């Protein structure tokens, strides 16, 4: 009965509804983007009306929000944080730096394309994106969840070896617990 396909579908719809209206965000405040989060959350733009809420630790979070350029040193921590999050989990890349390197395109220590290292569900472009853009990004993520297309975590799990290869290329000293869920 529980494994019935139709009932599973209904369960999925309900679960997705809950998930998309309750996004706990872990804002990994790298770069200049961290300053855009407070206005997004507070009175003027009020992201809480979409059920978006800050989470303090990766264990509780659903969305990893990467707010700017990532140096190789920070990338290691971000990967660790992402792997500590529990399924289902989503990643939002925030600002040009995460998309193509932005103004740091020729720096010796910042990565340029985030989705080679982590499965990004939604990119928000701009340098910096305004809070409106951030909220638009969240709404886009919500519609992806509703359609069941936000499957970054699954992508990561399936292509783990490839991701690992990319990650290890920029992080020579790789000391991290196994990722096996």
């Amino acid at each position, binding site marked *: 009965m529980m494994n019935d396909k139709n009932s599973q579908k209904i369960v999925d719809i309900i679960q997705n509804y809950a998930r998309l209206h309750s996004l706990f965000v872990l804002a990994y405040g790298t770069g200049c983007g961290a300053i855009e989060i407070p206005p997004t959350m507070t009175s003027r733009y009020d992201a809480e009306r979409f059920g978006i809420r800050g989470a303090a630790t990766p264990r509780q979070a659903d969305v990893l929000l990467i707010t700017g350029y990532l140096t190789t040193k920070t990338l290691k921590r971000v990967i660790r944080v992402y792997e500590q999050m529990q399924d289902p989990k989503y990643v939002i890349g925030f600002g040009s730096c995460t998309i193509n390197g932005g103004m740091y395109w020729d720096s010796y*220590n910042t990565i340029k394309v985030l989705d080679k290292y982590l499965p990004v569900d939604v990119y928000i472009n701009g340098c910096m994106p305004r809070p409106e853009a951030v909220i638009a990004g969240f709404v886009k993520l919500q519609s992806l969840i509703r359609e069941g297309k936000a499957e970054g975590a699954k992508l990561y799990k399936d292509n783990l070896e490839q991701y690992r290869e990319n990650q290890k290329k920029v992080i020579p000293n790789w000391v991290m617990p196994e990722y096996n869920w």
Partner: protein
Amino acid sequence: MEEIKSKIIERIKANFSDAKNKSYPGDRIDFSVNKETIPSILFYLKDEMGFKHLSHITCVDWLEENEFEVIFIIWSPLEKLKVFVRTRLDRDNPVMDNIDVIWRQAHTYEREMREMFGIQFNGLEAPQDFLLEDWEGMPPMRRDFDTEGYAAETFFERPGREDAKDVREILTERSGEIVPDFAKKYSR
């Protein structure tokens, strides 16, 4: 102020024979010394002449002369004067004395210079990694380090910005300034 400045210069010249002075207007005094003299002149300035405060240590890469120039900037809160003490190191073998016994905060600057320029300080006790993590190869702040090439080689590039122009090129075009050849090669 000028009398005090000249007095200081005289005292330093009398005590340190290798100290060469270059005059600047304002509250700035400038000495160039040999690298062996650095600890003693700094000690002397701190203890005898009241330059209590180490403002900054910085390094300039004179690639063409194959030398590093390390500059110590110290400040006297009493006389309201600052002293630049410069020294030159051989670029192939950049070694000098550690001065963090004189000012503890020198430690941080020295670690940074060790990591970014590869200057070795004798007796500097600190973990190898400071700002970079697991860096191998040429220190990145040296001018002969090819940043763009390194980035292109190490990191992925998203297609679509090949036609983007370097901002510096546009700026030089606009201002009509002639860029020297070495700058074209290294200053990217």
